[in-house]
């Protein structure tokens, strides 16, 4: 498989009045063409920031201080704003958590689906209209022609998310980034949206990055997983490997803390809370909550140790002889 995206030692800092917040602390990964990558973590783990950095969509106080991002052969960090605009929405499509706040309430849905095509000058207005209509049909919106004239408030939550997906896919992107796309939806709708994303992925042959806090959601969709905690990568590997033979204590905790509908089990809550990222703990970021922490965990940050085929874990326990 060809490499589509390569991120090396990414460091993103937010400059706040209280101090410098390391939102992403040295993350590296590759994404191949056609691959589906899941990034799993709790709020504040840096999962969204790490992905928004790919198109440099960061707030004014956020800065990429170190590292390199290469997308489709281009060095993202060296591109001008105009060159970046060419990539955003065309080569990389985005779907965010809350469709209502991502859609413009005073523009018809049809216009919003056509907009990326027109903005990037990819086709004529008539052609854009036709393609928008087809795309809305493809994402499962009944009577697309009539509904194109309607406004976002006239759509239900699930339908709005379908509109978002249509907008993200209309330019035939090489990469789709879906940031918690089903968090505000009901389970039945969630199942529909994940099924839709899966179908669209194979139909359009694109790569997908799915950001979620729900491990179970990844099991059926993602090829590979990255588990993030407090701005760091804790574990990465094939989805089945990570879920069936988790290696990092945090991943194991995550699996034990979530009830599963098929397995009757005692829940083991993770003690403590997520650390303050302005004054993070030394060494491994998870050590204050980790029952297995050793002396070295308090002083030195663990690198990613190989624990299996393409399966890595940032835990000193895995690095011991």
């Amino acid at each position, binding site marked *: 498989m060809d490499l589509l995206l390569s991120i090396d030692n990414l460091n993103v800092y937010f400059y706040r009045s209280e101090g410098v917040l390391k939102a992403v602390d040295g993350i590296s990964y590759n994404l191949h063409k056609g691959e589906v990558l899941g990034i799993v973590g*709790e*709020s504040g783990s840096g999962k969204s920031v790490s992905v928004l950095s790919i198109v440099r969509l960061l707030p004014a106080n956020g800065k990429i201080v170190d590292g390199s991002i290469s997308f489709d052969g281009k060095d993202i960090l060296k591109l001008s704003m105009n060159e970046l605009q060419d990539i955003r929405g065309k080569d990389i499509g985005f779907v965010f958590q809350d469709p209502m706040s991502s859609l413009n309430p005073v523009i018809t849905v049809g216009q919003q689906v056509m907009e990326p095509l027109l903005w990037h000058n990819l086709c004529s207005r008539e052609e854009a209209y036709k393609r928008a209509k087809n795309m809305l049909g493809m994402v499962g919106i009944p009577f697309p022609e009539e509904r194109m004239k309607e406004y976002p408030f006239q759509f*239900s*939550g*699930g*339908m709005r998310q379908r509109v978002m997906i249509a907008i993200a896919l209309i330019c035939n992107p090489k990469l789709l980034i879906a940031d918690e796309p089903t968090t505000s939806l*009901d*389970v*039945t*709708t*969630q*199942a*529909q949206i*994940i*099924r839709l994303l899966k179908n669209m992925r194979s139909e359009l042959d694109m790569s997908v990055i799915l950001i979620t*806090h*729900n*491990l*179970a*959601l990844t*099991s*059926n969709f993602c090829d590979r997983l990255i588990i993030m905690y407090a701005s760091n990568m804790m574990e990465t590997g094939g*989805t089945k490997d990570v*879920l069936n033979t988790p290696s990092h204590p945090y991943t194991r*905790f*995550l*699996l*034990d*803390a*979530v*009830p*599963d*509908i*098929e*397995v009757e089990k005692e*829940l*083991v*809550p*993770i003690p403590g*809370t*997520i650390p303050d990222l302005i004054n993070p703990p030394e060494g491994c970021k998870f050590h204050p909550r980790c029952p297995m922490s050793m002396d070295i965990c308090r002083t030195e940050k663990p690198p990613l140790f190989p624990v299996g085929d393409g399966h890595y874990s940032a835990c000193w326990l895995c690095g011991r002889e």
Partner: protein
Amino acid sequence: MEDKILISVKNLKKYFSRGKDIVHAVEDVSFNIRRGETLGLVGESGSGKSTVARLIIRLIDTDGGNIIFDGVDITTLSEKALKPFRRRMQIVFQDPASSLNPQMTVGTIIKEQFLIHKLGTKQEQEKWVEELLEKVGIDPSFKDAYPHEFSGGQQQRICIARAIALRSEFIICDEPLSSLDVSIQAQIIKLLEDLQKELGLTYLFISHDLAVVKHLSDSIAVMYLGKLVEFSNKKDLFSNPLHPYTITLLSSVPTIKGEEKEVELKGEPPSPINPPEGCPFNPRCPKKEDICERETPILEEICEGHFVACHIVQR
């Protein structure tokens, strides 16, 4: 067994008017909750779960039906007559930040309960507040802090402390985990379990997360478009779901094992303003027959303790 029932609702109805339209929020819902047990109430958003919760504790008035709390019909009691019952039932909401007064310290928020019900001396009230905070896992020395100084999980703990302050027997938890991170959710689930064991609490647990509901509940009620479609003990519901809606709902839940499920629900829930004729689920039901469009199925006991409202299953 009858005397063990703490809450009994019969043919509960609630309609809201929206302009010229009438929203059928709750339609003929009946169930019992036994003392010391947890009833899980599940359904999609807009199915009327939260309305049922608000009706039971009389935050809003019913448009029909009865609510019986510990043998007393409280459906139409006056506010004054209701006050002793208010003490015995409490609710914990989804978003803890918006259910705690930002201008009051958490100590005062909890103490308010004792002031309203005129309980204890000042010293006693202070002592109780500290005991309650300790019980829910908050350091009592933080009682003079304000809600915004706590994390979401801690705020939810404070809401729970407030709910158990008056030694209430019955607590409604309305999506209490939805706004919390996964690692914090497990802590709150554990706290709710421990408190139930220690204080003998009865819960009505509302959630759209079926895995959590399965973990916590003794019996489960499934709502769809304002109606109860299935009611059963936990084991039967999950091992042998009968209503087509319950079956699709269960198959929609992602699991770690991640096996592809056969059934997928088509379409969207219809509007409760113009609910479909007959069975509310008929426009989306894979097993639909003519009768489903004409007659509304009634909740019937299919096998012991397992109630279903579906023409096809009942046959």
